[in-house]
């Protein structure tokens, strides 16, 4: 069995203990490219949760996010011979996943998605009129409000915000995932933050007016 193979033994394991994440991935990718599925299994274990966390924000629901995650790994496995290694493995993988999520999103009616998220936003709107520090009791409500506000962002901005502000990728990494230059990424991210801010204040206003 793929993950049960004793192949995952000494060679790259020793490296992992002493090297940085990127270098670990390079070693695993080299083995995987040579056909070592156990090494690819380790790449799956290392990056599946992170990839899922990104694409779930771009997908209709959790089931679709899992499908997209699986599909991305399948494509990565098949595409490994063509992976030149001039990008980090995980940014390449995330790019495959984000593109797949966007492809599926394009197939849905955008209006439907927006209507749903706005409804949710109204339902969970915060009482605060601005984005000021909130007490602990309001956090859960704020979280739901944020989730809905993020869901309401256009997909390009949403992807930028998720990669940088939620997942904590560097600007360079996030730009690589989206296949844009850093300057373009920063502009997209700035726009996303502005939209998010406006969305949150709108919720507060709606709540305050009701």
């Amino acid at each position, binding site marked *: 069995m793929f993950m049960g193979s004793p192949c995952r033994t000494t060679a790259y394991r020793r490296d992992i203990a002493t090297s940085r994440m990127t270098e670990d991935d390079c070693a695993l990718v080299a083995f995987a490219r040579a056909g070592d599925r156990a090494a690819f299994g380790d790449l799956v274990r290392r990056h599946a949760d992170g990839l*899922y*966390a990104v694409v779930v924000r771009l997908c209709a629901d959790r089931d679709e996010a899992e499908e997209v995650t699986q599909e991305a790994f399948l494509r990565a496995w098949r595409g490994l011979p063509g992976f030149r290694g001039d990008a980090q493995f995980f940014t390449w993988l995330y790019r495959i996943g984000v593109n797949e999520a966007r492809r599926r999103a394009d197939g849905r009616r955008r209006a439907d998605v927006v209507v749903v998220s706005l409804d949710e936003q109204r339902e969970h709107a915060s009482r605060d009129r601005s984005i000021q520090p909130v007490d602990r009791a309001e956090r859960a409500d704020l979280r739901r409000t944020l989730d809905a506000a993020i869901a309401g962002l256009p997909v390009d901005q949403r992807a930028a915000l998720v990669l940088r502000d939620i997942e904590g990728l560097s600007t360079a990494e996030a730009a690589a995932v989206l296949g844009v230059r850093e300057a373009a990424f920063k502009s997209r991210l700035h726009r996303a933050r502005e939209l998010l801010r406006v969305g949150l204040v709108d919720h507060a206003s709606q709540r305050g007016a009701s």
Partner: protein
Amino acid sequence: MTGDHRFASQSLQAYHEQTLPAAEDASVREHLRACTECRAALAGLTELAGDLRALRTRAPDGLAERVIARLDAESGAARLSVISTAVGQPAPRIARRVAGPGDRA
């Protein structure tokens, strides 16, 4: 925000992320000393940044193993058999790789 605060939305974010050039960083810091509105905005940014990081979605349990199982299911039987021959043995296939993981460039 208006007037003196116009720098705020992008520069304040960069100040928060500590990515401003030194001179601009000092200039924003100076402004913050005198401006309660921008201090409040910075507090809001800090809070929002923390809230966003806390939003990370937890993946469902067993996700990676399901991905691996699907890879197994959709890959050819040939490869599976190659790996199964190595179970419980010194794994000669790996030994070759240890000797030269970069051989296959």
